[in-house]
């Protein structure tokens, strides 16, 4: 744990301190003001008041604001906004603004190669031209220098940060208290209890077990949760000496699944029974994969099908084909659009969060269950916030509602 803290501190240092030091701002110099040429009956002059950097972004954008006398609005067509990097340099047209609107949001390019590029922490000068309806325009004095800059921390995301910190605290706390030997109760879940039973059933029938990890990548949390459950299933399979079929959609997922199954066989004391052909790659075209898996189902006739991980539209095709061959089916996904189809077509479905719970439950390390306690606490707190929030909103007070709002 200690070396992780050191690394964390180092990453934080590099990330937060260094950019500050590198991009330290210099004092801006005061520009010379230029007098605009005066002609006959020109509209009133705009006066540039400020250039405001938008908070919580990477810079490269600036809102320039100006003042304009009320009586002038009817005399002009609108404004043109010009920008330059020096008060006496060449001013370039950035855009227009309507006659009654006294600010302009100047969006510059982010990339240096972009002709529109607007650098952070550099001086920019603005000039506003009021275009008179009589064809005569009048220029403002040059405003500036204004700077745009990137922010180190997105203050609109503070609620998320607080949420993450509190939740991380709960998780770590309950896992470490589980390590100290505190008993944690977890209610039984039908889908979890069915796992071992399903392996036994396949053994009795002398048929294989099919395990589908879904079509997610190895970076999807649902897939990673599924690896843990696969480890448990594979171990049982090895103990019972049943056949296991794991057709994969993604090569990295396949590689990891091979390691997981091999380890499970090793743990069950039958490393010689494992071979890489149990976990194989089919294809990475979505419905071609479905066609392949369907073929495997109707030819190998597995007794039990597991569908655990990330699933899209193929969920129901697989589950219905599995149903037609009479397999016991256990499914679980965090894809909300697919849960109804699994519920309808499978024998046991782990709904959303239950998939993660199952993963914690069936993992090798019972300490992982501590995280379930943390999730429950978070849910409890959320329910309280919900209730208080709804009540306060109903009585016309927006405090709570604004407190939890994330402003991206």
């Amino acid at each position: 744990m200690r070396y992780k803290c050191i690394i964390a501190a180092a990453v934080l240092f590099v990330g937060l301190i260094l950019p500050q030091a590198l991009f330290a701002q210099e004092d801006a110099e005061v520009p010379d003001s230029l007098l605009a040429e005066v002609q006959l009956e020109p509209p009133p002059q705009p006066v540039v008041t400020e250039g405001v950097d938008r908070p919580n972004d990477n810079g490269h954008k600036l809102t320039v604001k100006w003042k304009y006398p009320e009586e002038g609005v009817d005399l002009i067509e609108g404004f043109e906004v010009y920008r330059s990097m020096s008060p006496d340099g060449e001013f370039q047209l950035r855009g227009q603004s309507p006659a009654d609107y006294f600010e302009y949001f100047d969006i510059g390019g982010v990339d240096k190669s972009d002709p529109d590029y607007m650098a952070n922490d550099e001086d920019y000068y603005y000039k506003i031209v009021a275009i008179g309806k009589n064809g005569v325009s009048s220029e403002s004095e040059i405003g500036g220098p204004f700077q745009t800059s990137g922010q180190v921390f997105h203050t609109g995301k503070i609620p998320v940060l607080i949420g993450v910190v509190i939740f991380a605290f709960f998780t770590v706390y309950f896992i470490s208290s589980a390590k100290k030997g505190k008993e944690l109760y977890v209610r039984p879940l039908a889908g979890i209890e069915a796992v071992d039973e399903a392996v036994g059933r396949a053994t009795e029938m002398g048929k294989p077990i099919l395990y589908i990890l879904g079509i997610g990548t190895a970076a999807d949390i649902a897939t990673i949760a599924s690896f843990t459950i696969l480890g448990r299933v594979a171990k049982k399979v090895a103990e019972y000496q049943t056949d296991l079929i794991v057709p994969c959609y993604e090569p990295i997922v396949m590689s990891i699944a091979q390691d997981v199954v091999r380890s499970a066989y090793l743990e069950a004391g039958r490393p010689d029974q494992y071979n890489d052909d149990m976990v194989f790659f089919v294809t990475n075209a979505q419905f071609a994969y479905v066609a392949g898996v369907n073929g495997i189902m109707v030819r190998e006739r597995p007794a039990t099908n597991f569908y655990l991980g990330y699933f899209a539209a193929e969920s129901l095709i697989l589950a219905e084909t599995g149903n037609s061959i009479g397999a016991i089916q256990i499914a679980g996904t965090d894809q909300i659009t697919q849960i109804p189809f699994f519920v309808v077509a499978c024998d046991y479905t782990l709904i959303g969060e239950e998939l993660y719970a199952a993963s914690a439950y069936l993992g090798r390390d019972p300490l992982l269950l501590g995280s379930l306690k943390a999730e429950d606490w978070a849910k409890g707190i959320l329910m309280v916030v919900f209730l208080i929030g709804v009540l306060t909103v109903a009585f016309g007070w927006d405090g709570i509602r604004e407190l939890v709002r994330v402003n991206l």
Partner: protein
Amino acid sequence: MKRRVPLTIVFIVSLFMVIQYFVPLDSWAWMYQYLIDWTIIIGVFALLLGIWSLLRVNYEKIQRKSENWQYSIVTLLGLFIMIIVGFVPGWGNLENYTYQHLFYYVLVPIQATMFSLLAFFIASAAFRAFRARSALASLLLFSGLIIMIRFVPMGPLSEPISEIATWILQVPNLAAKRAIIIGIGLGAAATALKIMLGIERAYLGRD
């Protein structure tokens, strides 16, 4: 080396991914994009493992003359043709005639048809599961049926049915979705935290 280094990598990368969410700076955005590029590159390298696995499985089937071995020839043929016409320099690669035509006239129609089988499976699943077997199943049946009947002209009944359907979509449907989404959020965040801290490490295998 075998466990400690990978777990450290996971921790560092995860931590960066968490922090970058809160930091809008260009340098961080660049780093994030750069690391996402890594995953793409690793993914493409891993593809060779996938292709190798596909070759091996099918080759063994043919060699052992196991059941349906003839079809494995079809798979290998499809694979080889695509790879050869796609990779041989000067043959147009992605614009190659055979590559494009096999895509449009083989891959697309079979995949689209496979997808369209859902129309039938959704019907058979509804037939089998939408039965008033218990209170729970009856509710499923009721709300599913109302939403489907909405489609069918029913004369004077249409009006109240469409009202109820809208209510179901507005109230219980939304409540159900939100509850599940929130649960998933907490479960996923907890799992990701355990992965980051190296508590959840089944993906590394043993030894």
